[in-house]
């Protein structure tokens, strides 16, 4: 978005983006499953809101559609599925023990700084606002990945993956006013399928190893094959 955009818009965009980032931090630290799912839903909503705002600011019609897609998928459908799964695997009450929560969060902040540092050279796209948002989205992506590294519980990993995707959507909207429609649809389709597959896998995993702790998934190790 260019400088002509009313400052209010830019500020609100930044605010929303910051909230998204905060939410992924919350996700990173959140050990209670249901709460985590809620936070994830909220993050989706944030992204959708950003999309809608940009659509309003730019008057880019197709963005409304993608905003709707995001809202529907990320903050309604997928959280609902996760809830159902959690109930059927009776694990709503489940609380994952983090080994070093402080380290986890600290590393997250480091990643944020790193993301800013990486995004600095990006000049030509839009104004500062969009660059900052790009930096934030990059941070969200990295934190999502970090969450998958740091959390052992399968659902938590999936949440990390999903919030990583949120970061992608945010970047797409902020940096490029959304992708072409065909791509948007394709991406949305893939995300949906992925979510379904995740659901399937929860069952497979929980019946193959009587838990959802991914660290138990280490039969295919090559250590000491000598």
């Amino acid at each position: 978005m260019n400088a002509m955009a009313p400052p209010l818009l830019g500020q609100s965009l930044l605010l929303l983006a910051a909230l998204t980032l905060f939410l992924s931090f919350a996700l990173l630290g959140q050990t209670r499953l249901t709460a985590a799912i809620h936070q994830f839903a909220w993050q989706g909503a944030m992204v959708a809101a950003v999309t809608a705002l940009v659509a309003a600011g730019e008057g880019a019609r197709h963005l409304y559609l993608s905003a709707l897609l995001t809202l529907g998928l990320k903050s309604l459908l997928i959280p609902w599925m996760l809830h159902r799964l959690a109930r059927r695997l009776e694990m709503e009450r489940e609380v994952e023990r983090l080994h070093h929560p402080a380290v986890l969060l600290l590393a997250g902040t480091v990643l944020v700084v790193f993301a800013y540092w990486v995004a600095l050279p990006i000049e030509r796209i839009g104004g500062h606002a969009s660059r900052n948002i790009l930096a934030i989205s990059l941070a969200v992506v990295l934190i999502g990945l970090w969450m998958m590294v740091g959390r052992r519980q399968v659902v938590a990993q999936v949440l990390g993956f999903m919030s990583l995707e949120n970061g992608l959507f945010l970047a797409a909207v902020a940096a490029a006013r959304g992708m072409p429609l065909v791509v948007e649809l394709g991406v949305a389709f893939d995300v949906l399928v992925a979510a379904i597959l995740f659901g399937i896998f929860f069952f497979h995993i929980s019946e193959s190893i009587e838990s959802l702790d991914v660290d138990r998934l280490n039969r295919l190790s090559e250590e000491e094959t000598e």
Partner: protein
Amino acid sequence: MSALWLMLAAPAVGALVLAAVPSLPLAGWLNTAFSAAALAAALWVGETVSRHGELASTYLRVDAFNVYLLVLTTFVGLTTAIFSRPYMREVCHQGRLTRRRMRLYHAMYQAFLFTMLLALSTDSLGILWVAVEGATLSTVLLVSLYRTPESIEAAWKYFILCGVGIALALFGTVLIYAAAQGVTGEGDAGLSWHRLYQNAARLDPGVMRIAFVFLLVGYGTKVGLVPMHFWLPDAHSEGPTPVSAVLSGLLLNVALYAVVRLKMIVDGALAGGPTAQLAGHLMMGFGLISFLVAVFSLRRQKDIKRLFSYSSIEHMGLMTFALGMGGPLATFAALLHMLVHSLAKSAIFVGVGHASHIAGTQRIERIRGLIRTQPRWVGGCCWGWRPSPAFRPSASSPASS
């Protein structure tokens, strides 16, 4: 053009039809038939391309580079389909699979072919991404087809790692799109490969650098470059043999194809800058590391399918190295190597499946004396083992030039 649509339609329709067909033998034949149709169409495409030089629409574009990959893909798809019919029937009789899963298998096989062809023939980076992600999704369930704990674990890792990788690739794509905004304008043009290629020089180098890193890590995960390769041996060794064959023979190629296409753009963007060779050097580095690590893992493998999946990593590393090096000789060698490797490797996996089927184990030391019992198979494998030394000279001669 119609040839192209036909080629894409064949597997797409096939996927839907096979999803509905309950009878197993019929499904096997249909599977073969659709693959054959795809091959025929691909040949037709090749013929048209050789006449007109290029075949293009808004979303699709076939030129001299990818037409040969199209033909190769459909060909391997057909051969593997032919092999998989009796093989899977055998497996089914052993009771390792239910009918429902056989339906899933055939449908997904076609779906996978469809995504491969789409990824190869599309002109839009966005659709390329969607297709490659689709390829992952369609094969995940094939890897875990046997539902053994190992296969499920392998599939999960495959899914997670490739999912993340692909997601990173999307980020890179977004960045490219963003960089293209000012140049090619909004909409599909911003992701059209050849438009970007034409205006590559005007793209922002800073953005393109970051973008390429994400794309390399992303698609590199699917190529099986070290250290993003961890999913590969598991997925190859646990899935049904035909799946291993197509994964190793096709999926890796397509991912590498994507990397190459993007490298061409990035090179254009960075040309003349201080980091003009960045893309090439990164690829060479990854190729070299992959080659070494794979070689070291090779010599300690006891599971024969793992062994060959590591050799896939090795060859991919070699090709990545050569392609990163650029230059006509290296590129030619790499493509030649790609061709030979796909054919040989799918043949080998087919053969190995056969062998481990006979021996009832995948442990090498238990598979013995096959040259007595199965000379033809061994001959095939010897032929399959050939490429690595035969093309090493051609692939790495220009290393210093």
